[in-house]
């Protein structure tokens, strides 16, 4: 398990229309075993901040420490960090040319140098955990969205990560499939996985989050426990946002 510290993180994008400040001087700590949910309107920099944690985006300034190791330092091998930080995407991003089983075993075999047999045993165990052991030999396009996302979670877990990042994991799903994915995420949270999520599922935030972070226009506006954030937020912008979505 791991501790994620985001310190004074900023991320700018250069666009044809000028510089876009996607994240502005954001600081946030996710303690070992904590579940932190980031909420906020679209375009507020939530996903960008999340993607900076495993180096999919390179921060413009600031530091990100995982278990005390500065991921932004030039001496740090970002690939080693990524091996230990799982990520689940909004659009699943399963590999369509591989079976479900191969999707899960590929990284353990190629990156962790695990032998195929133990990798497959591990994969079957994880598939059972997400309730899809009968789909091992199927190709991802034949699965429903909810099933694909559960496979994606299993794929990330196969690397035995210290922490998991979720980038709007249920936003691309039909309503009736959201629950099956949230159930898997809830059980992960219960097992003490360190989780940093971007989501619009306020129910999940209420049930599982230790901390809720509200972001707007690249800035962290407010941080607090779910009860406080949902019942009695301090900032007017947080109130506005919650009134709109709840």
């Amino acid at each position, binding site marked *: 398990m791991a501790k994620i510290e985001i310190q004074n993180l900023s991320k700018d994008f250069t666009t044809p229309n000028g510089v876009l400040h996607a994240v502005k001087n954001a600081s946030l700590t996710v303690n070992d075993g904590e579940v932190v949910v980031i909420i906020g309107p679209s375009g507020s920099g939530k996903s960008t901040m999340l993607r900076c944690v495993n180096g*999919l985006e390179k921060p413009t300034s600031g530091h990100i420490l995982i278990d005390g190791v500065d991921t932004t330092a030039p001496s740090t091998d970002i690939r080693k960090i*990524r091996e230990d930080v799982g990520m689940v995407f909004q659009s699943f*991003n399963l590999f369509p040319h591989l079976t479900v089983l191969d999707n899960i075993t590929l990284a353990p075999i190629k990156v962790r140098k695990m032998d195929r047999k133990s990798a497959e045993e591990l994969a079957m165990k994880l598939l059972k955990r997400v309730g899809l052991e009968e789909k091992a030999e199927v190709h991802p396009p034949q699965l429903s969205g909810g099933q694909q996302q559960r496979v994606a979670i299993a794929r990330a877990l196969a690397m035995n990560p210290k922490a998991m990042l979720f980038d709007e994991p249920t936003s691309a799903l039909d309503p009736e499939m959201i629950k099956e994915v949230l159930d898997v995420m809830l059980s992960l949270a219960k097992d003490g996985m360190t989780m940093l999520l971007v989501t619009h599922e306020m129910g999940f935030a209420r049930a599982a989050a230790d901390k809720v972070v509200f972001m707007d226009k690249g800035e962290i506006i407010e941080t607090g426990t779910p009860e406080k954030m949902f019942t009695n937020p301090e900032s007017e912008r947080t109130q506005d946002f919650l009134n709109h979505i709840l």
Partner: protein
Amino acid sequence: MDSKEIEEKIKAEAIRQHTVSVDPNAPGKGSTTINMTDGVLIPKKGEKHVFTSWRLTFFGALILSAVLIIFFPDPYRQIFLTCLRGAPVTFEVTIFSIIGAVIIGTFTGLGSVSKRRWINMICGVYVELIRGIPLLVQLIFIYYAVGSFFHVEGMMAAIFALSVCFGAYMGEIVRAGIQAIPKGQMEAAIALGMSRSQAFRYIILPQTVKVILPAIGNEFISMLKDSSLVSVLALEDILRCGRMYISRTFLSLETMLVVALIYLIITLVLSRLVGLLEERLHKNG
């Protein structure tokens, strides 16, 4: 539509006009296909107009050939036999050159999407250079250039020249194929701790192959036609066999008619095969 969207549209359009285009008929779900310029002429079921034209041309050519051979055996039977003697050479040159072109094209395509600027530059210059020089000029140039350093026979020089030339176009196909794979695939691989080269090997390239296979088939057909240019290199392909026959008998019109018919029939058969391949890919994809 904001300005960014428009800009992307324009960029996409520019790419499309640049010989490579994403097949507009492909269903949106992950099975994008890339077609080269004459890809629209590949007969597929459901495209009635093209399919009918294909059938008309193909059977027209067959019937004409049969009529010529049966009712005018003198001189047509002799011409057919002579010209067909060049077919193995034509096929040999085409097949080896397409293999060479695919190998060169894979490296060029990978180079074009590489993160190293100087590799991009080399690949870009290679493609521009090749695209800017007529194939016939390249063939003769490479033939003499290679010949002045090593002693190579015509066949090797022809295969080398055709590979180098088509490798540039193939590189563009591979590049477009790689770029047709959704960005999330690379991100997911990288997020799992894979290196970029591992991601290319296990994730991107296997998916690219499926996307570009029809385009490669297309190139094969173009290559078969353009291989007639090697007849200037003293290689006895279909065209050269015909021209040698003309110099013996002075039956220019009759011989060239037969040469044209042979190329036409081979090309039409191959087009249909590529069409079938595409249909299969769509069904499985």
